[in-house]
């Protein structure tokens, strides 16, 4: 073990501060010390002190590095004579995280069944979990991994998938406690991850513990971890990605070593996992991406690096950070499709062919050939396309006629009857039905309202460059604007392309006879008056290859035609994969705030960093156990404050460096910048996108960003208390105050996380720190800032 004399904590500011010169020195030393290749990064700022110390022991030839090696490492004391204390001192790197993890488990698991009703979004995610158990195909905007894990937890708990998870419903005996513990486990492991990540970022041991305690005692993390939701998994995976990233960075001095490969691959897998839980995981992926670009740029400037090695760096990263995560993501979907083999509520989002392949779906028994007089539903073939739909509601502007939309929900309003146009002589029922062929003229009658599919020279409501499509007239009105031409595009099965219209497999366009435009649905959502369904237009641009203008017959009823032969159809995995992803994207984009409605649960990103809002997770009656999603105010405010302090400090140092003042040693400066880039960058990447994107945002969207600000909080305190001139007394007081403040605030808001019993108005008045929190009911209506 090393002794204190060969550790100098700080480099006295010398004249040789130029980076090149440092390089030069290093290279010289390397030449003399034979076993190291060139090191483009200079001293390793992120490597935790203890690891560097071990290295140091192994190769005493590196003695010259001592004077700038241990920028942030706190002074270590001699081991105590007391054997228990010595045991602790020797094993603290295991004991501390173990203890933190145990406390974390206790806080997350205790009294987890305190509310026996379906709380908040358990209604969604519990239900999705049930679908996996039952194998019913469903649709949701999030990728499947998290929900499959929920399903797994249910299966492990012996739950059979029969519970409906209606919001607020009382749980039957389905092992929901176990399911919650399963989720809470993920929330719990954030704590040791925060500890280890801080260590990788080169913080002192106290700071590492403080970072972990911030995560441990954040009421918001605690609350959200204790229910059947995806957030705990998302957060744990995000923390894991970040941990892998910092760990990998610290292997940069030994590229292509086993550890280097291991952590690079782990980062890739972690990215895959986090992105398969929620797309928010792409933000931490972006952080990894930016870090990779920076690394490759650094390596590019290393003139002594052989080109083949440089290319190897690229290939290794492409394989581990692109191919590997993508495989994990695709695998989660493959598993998703493999488990969900039965027809279910999500069918309509998928292509007709995919639906036909599900158990319990009867499409394949529909009559094969479509004829005049057939009743059909018509599916748009664009990714995420819906069924042609109409309902009695009318357009508020334009023609004011009946709305025609595209809709994913299956109901009778999707049924259309393919009719002869009036001017033709042959009546529909005469003799054997006439099979529809390429070029036939038809009229589409809406079964429920008897209106005909109609278009005219009136601007469409949203895509105003195209014509509106409406439901108009009925069988008695003879309007040329009701006439459409069938143009067959392709035949997707083994049938010959003979110009006959078959259900499911034939794709076709519908061209308006008078205007020459194509019936199109481009996944543009109508406003609230159109129930956010997809706008249908008549596209004049004649884009004959656009999948949004191409349709197929999905369901088909015709008594006069023979039933289909059954299993003829197979959809391809990649097609289904893309289809589902585009549908997820489209639905996600449709989650935009409704200006007419002010959602009390939604909040604005500007309200998050200073915790201006909380969120009621369930009904607020006196006899419900009430949960209020609210962060630990000290942790949140501290985290946000530290962003500002860090920015100002960095600005101060940079300006001073331009004047050649050295406030910190080069070693410390490297570490300060490296950790700052990762933490501030991580925060920005997880926060700013929410300010830009138009969709509805909720408080829990801030949680991943919060993690970075909490770590930064600890980092900033650590930076300032480990300055020359700060006595250990001051240091201890600062840490003590910080620990105490976070712990006591956590305890003060205990009930908010573990459930408020009885009347909130009576017991929680003292917790209403900010006017816009609605823990209690009689907050003043006018003060909602």
């Amino acid at each position, binding site marked *: 073990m090393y002794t204190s004399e060969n550790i100098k904590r700080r480099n006295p500011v010398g004249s040789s501060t130029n980076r090149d010169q440092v390089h030069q020195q290093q290279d010289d030393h390397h030449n003399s010390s034979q076993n190291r290749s060139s090191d483009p990064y200079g001293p390793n700022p992120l490597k935790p002190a203890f690891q560097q110390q071990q290295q140091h022991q192994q190769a005493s030839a590196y003695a010259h590095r001592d004077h700038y090696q241990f920028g942030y490492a706190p002074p270590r004391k001699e081991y105590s004579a007391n054997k228990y204390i010595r045991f602790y001192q020797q094993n603290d790197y295991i004991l501390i995280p173990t203890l933190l993890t145990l406390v974390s488990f206790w806080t997350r698991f205790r009294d987890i069944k305190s509310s026996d009703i379906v709380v908040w979004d358990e209604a969604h995610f519990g239900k999705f979990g049930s679908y996996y158990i039952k194998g019913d195909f469903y649709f949701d905007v999030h990728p499947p991994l998290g929900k499959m894990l929920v399903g797994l937890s249910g299966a492990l708990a012996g739950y059979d998938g029969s519970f409906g998870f209606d919001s607020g419903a009382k749980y039957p005996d389905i092992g929901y406690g176990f399911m919650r513990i399963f989720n809470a486990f993920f929330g719990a492991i954030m704590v040791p991850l925060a500890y280890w990540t801080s260590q990788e970022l080169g913080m002192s041991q106290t700071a590492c513990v403080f970072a972990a305690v911030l995560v441990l005692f954040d009421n918001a993390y605690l609350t959200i971890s204790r229910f059947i939701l995806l957030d705990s998994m998302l957060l744990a995976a995000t923390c894991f990605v970040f941990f892998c990233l910092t760990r990998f960075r610290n292997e940069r001095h030994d590229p292509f070593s086993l550890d280097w490969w291991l952590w690079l691959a782990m980062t890739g897998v972690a990215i895959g996992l986090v992105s398969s839980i929620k797309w928010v995981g792409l933000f931490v992926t972006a952080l990894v991406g930016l870090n990779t670009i920076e690394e490759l*740029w650094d390596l*590019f400037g290393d003139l002594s690096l052989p080109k083949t090695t440089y290319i190897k760096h690229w290939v290794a990263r492409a394989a581990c950070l692109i191919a590997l995560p993508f495989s994990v993501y695709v695998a989660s979907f493959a598993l998703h499709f493999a488990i969900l083999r039965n027809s279910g509520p999500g069918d309509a989002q998928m292509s007709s062919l995919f639906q036909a392949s599900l158990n319990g779906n009867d499409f394949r028994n529909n009559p094969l050939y479509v004829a005049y007089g057939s009743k059909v539903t018509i599916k748009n073939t664009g990714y995420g396309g819906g069924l042609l739909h109409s309902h009695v509601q009318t357009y508020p502007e334009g023609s004011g006629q009946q709305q025609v939309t595209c809709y994913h929900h299956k109901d009778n309003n999707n049924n259309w009857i393919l009719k002869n146009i009036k001017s033709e002589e042959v009546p529909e029922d005469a003799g054997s039905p006439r099979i529809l062929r390429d070029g036939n003229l038809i009229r589409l009658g809406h079964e429920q309202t008897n209106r005909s599919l109609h278009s005219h020279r009136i*601007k469409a409501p949203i895509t*105003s*460059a195209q014509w509106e499509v409406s439901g108009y007239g009925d069988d008695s009105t003879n309007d040329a604007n009701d006439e459409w031409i069938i143009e067959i595009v392709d035949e997707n099965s083994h049938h010959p392309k003979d110009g006959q219209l078959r259900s499911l497999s034939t794709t076709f366009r519908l061209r308006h006879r008078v205007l020459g435009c194509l019936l199109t649905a481009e996944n543009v959502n109508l406003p609230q008056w159109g129930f956010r369904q997809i706008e249908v237009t008549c596209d004049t641009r004649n884009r004959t290859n656009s999948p949004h203008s191409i349709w197929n017959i999905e369901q088909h009823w015709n008594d006069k035609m023979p039933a289909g032969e059954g299993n003829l159809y197979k959809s391809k995995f990649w097609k289904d994969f893309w289809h589902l992803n585009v549908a997820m994207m489209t639905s996600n984009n449709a989650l935009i705030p409704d200006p007419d*409605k002010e959602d009390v649960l939604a909040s604005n990103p500007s309200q998050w960093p200073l915790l201006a809002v909380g969120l009621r997770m369930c009904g607020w009656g006196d006899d419900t156990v009430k949960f209020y999603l609210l962060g630990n105010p000290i942790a949140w405010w501290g985290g946000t404050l530290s962003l500002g302090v860090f920015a100002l400090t960095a600005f101060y140092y940079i300006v001073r460096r331009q*004047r050649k003042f050295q406030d910190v040693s080069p070693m410390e400066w490297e570490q300060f910048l490296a950790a700052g880039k990762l933490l501030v960058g991580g925060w920005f990447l997880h926060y700013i996108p929410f300010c*830009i994107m138009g969709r509805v945002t909720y408080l829990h969207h801030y949680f991943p960003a919060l993690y970075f600000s909490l770590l930064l909080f600890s980092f900033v305190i650590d930076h300032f208390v480990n300055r020359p001139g700060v006595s250990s007394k001051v240091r201890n007081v600062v840490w003590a105050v910080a620990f105490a403040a976070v712990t006591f605030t956590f305890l003060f808001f205990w009930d908010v996380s573990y459930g408020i019993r009885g009347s909130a108005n009576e017991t929680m008045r003292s917790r209403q720190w900010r006017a816009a929190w609605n823990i209690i009911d009689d907050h003043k*209506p006018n003060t909602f800032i």
Partner: protein
Amino acid sequence: MEVWHLLNESLATGSESTLRQRSTVPKLTPPRDDSINTTEDAPKKVIKSVFTSAEKTNSLITLAGLTAVAIFARFYKIYEPDEVVFDEVHFGKFASYYLRGSYFFDVHPPLAKMMLAAMGYFLGYDGHFLFDNIGDKYNDNNVPYIGLRALPAFLGAMTVPLVYMTMREAGFPILTCTLAAFFVIFDNMLVTQTRLILLDSMLVFFMMCSIYSYVRFYKTRNNPFSLKWWSWMIATGVSIAMTTSVKMVGLFTVATIGVAVIWDLWELLDIRRRLTMQQFMNHFYARAIALILIPIVVYLFWFYVHFAILTNSGPGDDFMSTEFQETLKGNTMADGIYVKYGDNITIRHKDTSVYLHSHYHNYPLRYDDGRISSAGQQVTGYSHEDPNNLWQVYSDSLENTKVGKQVKDKDVIRLLHVATSSWLLAHDVASPTMTTNEEITTYSTDEDGSRFNETTFQIILESGGDKLRTMASNFKLLHQSTKVAIWTHPQKLPDWGFDQQEVNGNKNIVQKSNLWLSDNIEGKNASEIDQESSKVVKKRSFILKFLELQGKMISHNAGLTDSHPYQSSPIEWPFLAKGISFWTENDTRKQIYLLGNPLGMWIAIASLAVIMGVSGADLLSRRRGFYPLNQDVQKRFYYATGFFFIGWVFHYIPFFLMGRALFLHHYMPALVFSYMVLAAVHGFIFIEGVDGPISDPGPETRPRQVQRAVVPVIAYATGIILMVIHLGSFLFFAPLSYGTSAPDVAGLARRKFLPQWDFHFAK
């Protein structure tokens, strides 16, 4: 290693001929700053200018020629069409409002519209015409539209010499400057958009003033705090303020200059520049004054003038708060009178303009969907005046003890429906159409007082002072016992409710549509009103008025999200994927269709790609220790060409973040920069070396060796080819830009380079 070098050489130059300009031996140190740069064998005299007087004369003649051509291009048949074209609808109208002094609201700051109004004023135009529809005839309405158009056309033409001089001051040879100016002259979009009564001409003019002034300022940097230095810096500050006073897009110009200033300050801070901290702070303060403080004052000044002119009530009143409207002459807000307890008032919903109404008909006991109501008296929203709209205001005590006292904010009141003699009441029963909201009904005075607690409402004034006043106060009525706000929405009740609007209790009490106002007090006649309100136009501090207007401008601008058939997305602009139909005339088949010069714009976007490629290659090669560009060429490339490129980036990229509807003409400022980059890139490829030094020498500047650019014949040849292509393309599309002649169907089809260009009369 050699491969890198060669790769960079070829990428950077694209030409063998310039190889000798560049250092062939890789330098290990980066290029030094020029202020401390000396050359041993330099002549010992300080150079005033590198250009000979003959060159200066040539430059002046070229400048004069280009300006004359520019004026001709903008003024050609400016009297056609004598009809309102496209957004002249807005900006012509606003000019008229200025001349009338009636208050209007627009999302753009006032300067350019006031300039148009001033022009109208000098022409003797009185603002009688409102430019209501595209195609309205000017001559029939006696509007001096030629004069009004002359202002933007003149400033549009003046942009051309500014571009020329900016390039010239940045040290480019006459050929390069001419190329840039020529491209600006003959761009169809710049022509069309600047010869109509629109704001963009002023915007681009002031923007170029800012860039020109900044370049001049930067060249005086060796003589800091000299008169010239101050003058050009203040000129920059005033120009950016003027740009921003035309359109908020001017902030992009501010950002462009800002980035350059920050970069400059950063260089000054470098210890190697040998400035003391005091000297550096002086630099900093000087810039803060000239580039922050003065612009703010100028910007505010134009708003001050704006408010000073618009003193009468007008179409913009409704956008503003009550307090603001009270400052306008003839505004109805000034008629508002205070409501007292005991008064019979009407209560109107702010958003849907229906009166709170009740009548002797009850809710049906059972609705169609099977739900049950209280079967109490209906309370509805009714859009016509009617005696049943009257409500008498009572205080919350059982006896009406406060008769004659004024109703104040946060008072708890009860409302008595006068015609049916019953109290307004809300209770926890689902409303007819919304199960989430409470039913509002009334409760007869004949019955006992047991439901008193359900009839009290707190009145919360959201604007218009702290006392309830007709016309002026917007208020919410908050039910005391169940915490709902009285609310109505456009949903009509079924037949039993006479198709009147549903009124219910909204649990979301912060919703903005909960607002009501009282517009009448029964029996208070005009004379009484006159007595009560002195009809004085109130005063409001300028800064409050400004802040309110600025806030409204920003929120309304962001709210311009309605789709428009000719809107386009920023990604389409540089490629000219879409145009805008400005004006058509069916009889003559003439049309004005806004479109840039297609070939010119496509060459410009290619040159932008070149600059990105060259700087990327330079960056990569320098990372590998090679310096492929000659130090002076490199410096000119980054400091001049790069600056214009930054201008393009800053005037283009931010549009991607905007949610509002965007149009092709938003690309105009960026387009001017892209033409300047185009010319500079042409010079970079074909002209060898640079002219230098171009900056004014300072007292401490050591003498530097004069170097001159060599302009080979190939440069002239390619420059002329580019100009011919550009001019040809301009003339080809000129009929659509000027709207003076109508190409036939085949002609239009020939011009339809891209299928998305939806010309009229093309069939």
